[in-house]
């Protein structure tokens, strides 16, 4: 415990404590300093999920603007949807994942190809259940899948390799795995032992490098084949019918703009 008597609180030193400029070492100043303590990795655990949303909004801003968040389930639904997309992406080269995904699809046929190209929606009006998340996690890779994934000839081998992103077709399986991996992170990353991610570990050069590898891969090649109308995770995550109650959404103008 501190042995120093705290100086009496007044408006001036209160402001200094609030802004972190206080020189005193009072208990109060230390409490506030502790509240302002360094960020922990747990606090930043949602970074990958936020990045996915950021990229999705950028890829198809119009779709993202027309919808709003669905409460609490949003990340899980996002994971379900990107998981399905990942399974379809894997199916594009592997085939087996298609079977798993087909059982979870609400509108499979005409979405199969566009969905396999990106973080795509299986359906604009269907809603995958959390069950679909489990079903859509890529199964252990069939030999052809693993080979295709690990043999992607020009896949970046280190973060920052955006300039040498893989050519479109071979990257599908890795993209799918990346999407599944990032979705996995959203839901807590409990399934990283799935052998399906082995190819990703190999491609990224280690487990610890997967996140940055995947972000690099997805950023470098957002449209591996062609821009597809359903090339977005916006609509399925967010539904106009689920607009939250309460005050109207904050207009996208910074409060700084309101300053005199």
């Amino acid at each position, binding site marked *: *415990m*501190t042995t120093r008597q705290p100086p009496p*609180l007044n*408006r001036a030193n*209160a402001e200094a*404590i*609030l*802004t*972190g*400029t206080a020189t005193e070492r009072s*208990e*109060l100043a*230390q*409490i*506030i300093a*502790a*509240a*302002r*303590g*360094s*960020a*922990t990795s*747990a*606090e*930043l655990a*949602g*970074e990958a*999920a*936020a*990045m996915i*949303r*950021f990229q999705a*909004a950028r890829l198809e*801003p119009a779709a*993202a*603007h027309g919808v*709003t*968040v669905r*409460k*609490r389930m*949003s*990340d899980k639904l996002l994971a379900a949807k990107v998981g399905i997309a990942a399974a379809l992406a894997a199916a594009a080269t592997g085939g087996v994942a298609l079977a798993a995904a087909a059982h979870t699809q609400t509108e499979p046929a005409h979405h199969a190809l566009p969905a396999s190209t990106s973080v795509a929606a299986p359906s604009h009006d269907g809603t995958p259940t959390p069950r679909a998340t489990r079903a859509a996690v890529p199964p252990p890779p069939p030999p052809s899948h693993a080979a295709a994934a690990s043999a992607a000839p020009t896949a970046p081998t280190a973060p920052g390799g955006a300039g040498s992103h893989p050519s479109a077709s071979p990257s599908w399986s890795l993209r799918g795995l990346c999407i599944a991996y990032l979705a996995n992170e959203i839901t807590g990353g409990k399934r990283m032992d799935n052998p399906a991610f082995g190819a990703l570990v190999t491609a990224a050069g280690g487990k610890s490098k997967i996140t940055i590898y995947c*972000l690099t891969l997805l*950023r470098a090649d957002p449209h591996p084949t062609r821009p597809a109308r359903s090339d977005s995770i916006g609509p399925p*995550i*967010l539904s106009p019918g689920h607009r939250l*109650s*309460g*005050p109207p*959404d*904050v*207009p*996208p*103008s*910074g*409060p*700084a*703009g*309101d*300053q005199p």
Partner: protein
Amino acid sequence: MSPARHAAGGDPDTPLTRAVAAAQRGDDLAFTQVYRAVQPGLLRYLMVLVGPDGEDVASETWAQVCRDFSGFQGDGDGFRAWTATIGRHRAMDHLRARARRPVAVTTLDELMALPARDDTAGLALESLSTAAALRLIAELPRDQAEAVMLRAVVGLDANAAGRVLGKRAGAVRTAAYRGLRRLAEQGAGNLVDRTSDRSRPFDAETVR
């Protein structure tokens, strides 16, 4: 990395201002910088508001931020205030839906590897953890807790915090001042004293 950054003077050319602008141009790495600069303070604020569900509310907040990012206009400080405003709206939605008192911050224990309250009592004040400090703040009346959090942890000046809260800057200053006074009165000594107090409604054992 401290979650708060104070630039009440309004210097428009800060790292966060530049990162926000770059992210709006589609720079993913800049978005990462923005996230890392803003998320810790935002999450702590939301945890104080809604307790264990703060992480969910933060996720919803970022979903909306990403959705509306391209339309944001302002500097880094403005971005902090904007995200805090969105987060507060989502938190209020959450509280209304839950119709529950927004006090408990139990999951901060897990989020920040906080030692249990009994253990915290044995620590020197110098090692008071972030989670323990947030727990103290969360037990203030909500207007005081919000004012303290927005000013001290999110890093807003009184004007910006007032806009987030829909109050005048003077009201925010008063609430923050009262909150600090109460914290000073209760302080870490209070934290120690309450280690044997089992009657508080949001004591960790009660919530768990």
